[in-house]
């Protein structure tokens, strides 16, 4: 398992670096070739450079100039890896792209409109003569596509991606046809008006240019697929050489067979069509197999993960179960200890401890019932907590109402535990002291998201009892008992602040920042 993985990683890192250098090299080759054709071929008149394929078409000056301009400005405008693009060069690239698109459009208009053989004939009378050469419509179309791609490269990623892909692909297809004709049977081009005048090196430079344009930003277009480390990319790297080589060889063989008089042209077409169909289908099936295998593996992995996840969940539930059992044991031990004492205040102390232990365990009780165990819904939590406190305090028989209103919110377990202890402490204190000598009472607990800033959380516990002395509950000199100490400590732990006031009963307002909610202690 390990060895193939490391080989894949190595391959992918090679392929990841490779395109950075390759497209620069390609643009340099295109620039240099166009420069040589223009300078030595046209200015110094060395004809073999303009008509590199004996008997083929010439690369006219306009074509060479367009190549030179475009490839040179691409080299200048595209930043080196790790360097920022220079805005002036980007603007230059856009201007050049627009200029080349204009030249290509003019050429298409004049050649299709029958005004002249091409754009060169408009400038140099020499090219008006038959057979002198012209920018073929195919060449103009390729330049149009290349200009769109170059313009696209000057825009931020994600803008014009589709236009880039379509243009690069279309351009590559157009120039590959004459290129293949030159390689296999140049005579085949002769009567094709659209591309007969495209020179061999023009077609070659276009093929290089479009590949370079796509390599310049592998995130656009489809060329990036060859450099990925996914199973699809690995398959593509394996199959593409075959997908190019086999049809070429087959076509060459079929053409040779026709020339030798073994098969007719009609049979050749049908034979090649059938052969290509089978090659295409074979490629598709190869990919389908790879995809099926990868999906099978994915399903296996998914099942393994699910199993592991299930085991973890069971383990976690077990831990929570143990925690709750241990809390019950602690409560039982406390209760055993409490029986040694007859003094009511001592028994009250032990009862308060039991209540706190149950407040802590409420978090765990809710936790095990939930799917998401990282956080806890505070509305559910506070509701269960208040119900438990009401039951334990016998509030129904004492005619005391415990109301709760909460906004929807969630917190981590540790923060919920602290909040729960805090609410327990204040509410239990109110139950004990606020309604001495009264027939009935009301305690209301609210938990709100601060409407003003949306950040703070405000917990309010209010009763309509006899009230209390606020100074005993807050401030540096704690006059209250262990309860007030606990309350202040818990508020600090929540990184909040507390205001205690007394009017028609006591009112505790605790404000805490929302960041506390996601803290894990």
């Amino acid at each position, binding site marked *: 398992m390990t060895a193939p993985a490391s080989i894949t990683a190595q391959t992918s890192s090679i392929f990841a670096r490779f395109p950075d250098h390759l497209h620069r090299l390609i643009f340099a080759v295109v620039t240099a070739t166009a420069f040589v054709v223009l300078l030595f071929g046209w200015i110094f008149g060395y004809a073999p450079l303009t008509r590199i394929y004996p008997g083929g078409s010439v690369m006219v000056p306009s074509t060479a100039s367009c190549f030179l301009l475009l490839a040179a400005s691409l080299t200048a405008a595209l930043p080196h890896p790790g360097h920022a693009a220079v805005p002036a060069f980007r603007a230059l690239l856009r201007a050049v792209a627009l200029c080349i698109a204009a030249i290509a459009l003019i050429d298409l208009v004049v050649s299709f409109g029958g005004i002249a053989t091409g754009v060169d004939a408009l400038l140099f009378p020499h090219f008006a003569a038959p057979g002198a050469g012209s920018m073929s419509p195919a060449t103009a179309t390729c330049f149009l596509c290349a200009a769109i791609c170059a313009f696209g490269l000057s825009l931020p990623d994600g803008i014009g991606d589709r236009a880039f892909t379509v243009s690069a692909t279309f351009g590559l297809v157009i120039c590959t046809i004459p290129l293949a004709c030159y390689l296999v049977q140049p005579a085949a081009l002769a009567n094709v008006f659209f591309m007969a005048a495209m020179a061999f090196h023009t077609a070659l430079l276009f093929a290089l240019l479009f590949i370079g344009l796509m390599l310049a930003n592998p995130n656009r277009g489809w060329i990036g697929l060859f450099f990925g480390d996914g199973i699809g990319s690995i398959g593509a790297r394996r199959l593409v050489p075959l997908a190019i080589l086999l049809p070429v060889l087959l076509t060459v063989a079929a053409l040779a067979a026709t020339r030798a008089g073994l098969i007719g042209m009609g049979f050749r077409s049908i034979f090649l069509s059938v052969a290509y169909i089978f090659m295409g289908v074979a490629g598709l099936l190869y990919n389908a197999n790879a995809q099926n295998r990868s999906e099978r593996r994915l399903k296996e992995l998914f099942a393994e993960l699910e199993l592991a996840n299930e085991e973890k969940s069971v383990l976690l*539930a077990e831990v*929570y*179960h*143990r925690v*709750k*059992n241990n*809390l*019950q*044991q*602690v*409560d*039982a*031990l406390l*209760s*055993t200890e409490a*029986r040694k004492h007859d003094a009511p205040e001592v028994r009250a102390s032990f009862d308060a401890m*039991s209540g706190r*232990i*149950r407040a802590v*365990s409420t978090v*765990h*009780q*809710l936790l*095990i*019932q939930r799917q998401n165990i990282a956080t806890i819904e505070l509305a559910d939590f506070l509701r269960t907590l208040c119900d*438990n406190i009401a*039951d*334990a305090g*016998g509030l129904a028989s004492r005619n005391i109402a415990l109301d709760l209103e909460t906004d929807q919110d969630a917190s981590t377990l540790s923060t919920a535990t602290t909040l729960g202890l805090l609410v327990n402490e204040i509410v239990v204190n109110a139950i004990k002291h606020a309604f001495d000598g009264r027939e009935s009472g009301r305690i209301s607990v609210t938990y709100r998201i601060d409407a003003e800033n949306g950040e703070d959380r405000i917990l309010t516990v209010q009763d309509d009892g006899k009230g209390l002395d606020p100074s005993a509950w807050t401030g540096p000199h704690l006059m209250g008992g262990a309860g007030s100490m606990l309350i202040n400590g818990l508020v600090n732990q929540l990184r909040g602040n507390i205001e205690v006031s007394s009017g028609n009963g006591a009112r505790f307002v605790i404000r805490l920042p929302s960041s506390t909610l996601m803290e894990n202690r």
Partner: protein
Amino acid sequence: MMNKRIVIVDDDFLIAEHLRRICVDAGATVCGMAHNASNAVEMIENEKPEFVLMDVRLGEARDGVDVSLEVNKTCPDMKIIFITGSSDPKTVQRINEDHPYKIMFKPIDPSALEGLLAA
């Protein structure tokens, strides 16, 4: 105040003892305490108490629900209060295979248990 007869089934001594004291304080009679499944079945069938406080996990293959299902055959009206440490849906579902009188989660609130026994 109420002379109710109760059997307590819990494999944890501390918790069983705690439950016993709560029952006694509430004025009930604890007529037996069992710490495993087979003892529990025998004790409940012999004593035929009004209430059973039943732990779910008893540290062996058979759990409190198995005990409950078995004694239900002979004493279908017995009030069985399940007391469990785990509130996960599976355990609750398992308990509901029987017809529990009530499910309580540890740590329990003594006054809530007293209220149930008094009802």
